[in-house]
């Protein structure tokens, strides 16, 4: 089968916001709870009450549910305020199914920042890491992203 049928290109999104990069970075990370659409974009859906972003490499992005239970969405792998933050992404699934998200903040004039987000990691890995782990990162993680949560919410 041709490879293109079984690969998923990275998702790339960008938005320009009226804030300097540092403020844009702080709002994206430390203030995530103020804007993240928890009701529709969480593992717990209606039961989700909060989300917190770690503040350095190794920190986690954690959702909290009404009963106090938590769900880890990912772990920060790069922390370069105010320019860049990157993290693994395995919301709704296990760490073994993690994909990668990178967000960059680029000044675009005074008080204006372009925020670019790239979600990748479900392509076939050329580096052999997957073979070593006995796990070929690919379709599984894609699907992991909230699949179960979405199914429950419907």
């Amino acid at each position, binding site marked *: 089968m041709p490879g293109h049928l079984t690969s998923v290109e990275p998702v790339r999104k960008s938005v320009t916001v009226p804030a300097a990069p540092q403020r844009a970075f702080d709002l994206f990370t430390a203030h995530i709870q103020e804007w993240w659409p928890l009701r529709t974009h969480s593992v717990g859906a209606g039961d989700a009450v909060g989300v917190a972003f770690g503040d350095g490499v190794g920190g986690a992005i954690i959702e909290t549910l009404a009963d106090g239970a938590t769900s880890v969405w990912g772990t920060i792998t790069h922390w370069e305020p105010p320019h860049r933050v990157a993290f693994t992404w395995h919301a709704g699934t296990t760490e073994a199914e993690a994909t990668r998200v990178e967000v960059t903040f680029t000044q675009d004039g005074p008080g204006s920042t372009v925020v670019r987000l790239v979600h990748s990691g479900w392509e076939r890995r050329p580096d052999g890491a997957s073979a070593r782990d006995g796990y070929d990162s690919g*379709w599984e993680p894609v699907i992991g992203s909230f699949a179960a949560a979405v199914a429950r919410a419907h």
Partner: protein
Amino acid sequence: MVLEALGDRTRRQIVHRLRAGPSSVGELAAALPVSRPAVSQHLTVLRRSGLVSYSELGTRNVYRLDPAGLRELKNWLDGFWETVLDRYAERVREDSADRADRGTPPRPE
């Protein structure tokens, strides 16, 4: 539909296997810790979702990934992050407006 189909770990494993190429039910059952009838049931769900299609090859039914399902998945992911960034941008705009109201200049870089 695609996401519902993929909410199940065994079905994710089947899809994962099919990435390597088309397979028969028997081959999938041999590779996974589930029975042949169970694999058949999962394949039915995957076919309904559009992720997997099948063709008859001699006496065998061969299953393969269907690009249509893949596109739906990609669209879902696009929509997911688009909503997230929209909400984020909205919050930044509110924040900037609040600061302007208070006379707080944007923090210089």
